[in-house]
């Protein structure tokens, strides 16, 4: 497998959706290609950092306006 093919298959590889034979080929390539190892490793970290990071709490003014909107809806007796 060549570097370009590794790049094309990174997503499937990280998602565990790559055919086992291709996984073996890709990992053989990684053993001797430092650049591809770095790209695979940092792409994995990229996906991880996005999925692990908790969202910030709602800004106070946003929360207050949301509550206000609902107080108004509840008073009107929605949704009944």
């Amino acid at each position, binding site marked *: 497998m060549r570097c*370009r093919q590794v*790049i*094309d298959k*990174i*997503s*499937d590889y*990280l*998602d565990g959706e790559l055919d086992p034979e291709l996984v073996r080929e890709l990992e053989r390539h990684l053993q001797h290609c430092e*650049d591809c190892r*770095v*790209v695979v*490793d*940092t*792409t994995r*970290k*990229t*996906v991880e*950092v*996005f*999925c*692990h*990071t*908790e*969202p*910030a*709490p*709602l*800004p106070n003014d*946003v*929360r207050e*306006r*949301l*509550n206000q*909107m*609902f107080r108004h*809806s*509840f008073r009107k007796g*929605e*949704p*009944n």
Partner: protein
Amino acid sequence: MPTHLDNEQSIVAAAQAGDSDAFVTLLNQYGRHIYRLGLSITGNHQDAEDVLQEASLKAYRAIAEFQGNSRFYTWLVRIAVNVALGKLRKRALWKESSLDEPRESEDGSYIPLEIESWGDDPEKACMNGELQQILAGVIQKLDLKSRTIFTLRDVEKFSIEETAKLLGLSIPVVKTRLLRSRLKLREELTKYFGKDARNAMPTSHR
């Protein structure tokens, strides 16, 4: 994806029976996730707030129709995505969206430029608030369609199939955009977290 509330089923059932406090409990749990989703897709805080408000109100009005076949959160996300995309479709942004400046070779492959391993894990390299700011910033470097796909798949953890269905796109399109988005974001984050990238870190961590 956020964790379940303890006894979520009974809270949802109470909300369906008209208990407004139960609905507020659900919103307290998931509101900030919906706001972040709206921010990722629309790219600005005012629209994110509109998405949160409109999606919450729609969910409140329609909660009796929620069948419980999926998590409540998944159901709420579907509503929020439709609200967000509805806004952008009105402004014709969705249709115009294309891959932004793909660096492709002649055969269409993406060519990575930044090849540099990362130092500390991002979670260790900066405080949570700063990390959130960095992530929210780099995701806006993607075009609208790509960042919506990336957000649903990699931030909210929907499957490729669910993401495709939600957005009315084919699975190959979702996969191609996801690959390019991951590679582009990897490059953007390498500017912050690469071993030689100290200067790009927020001031307090230089």
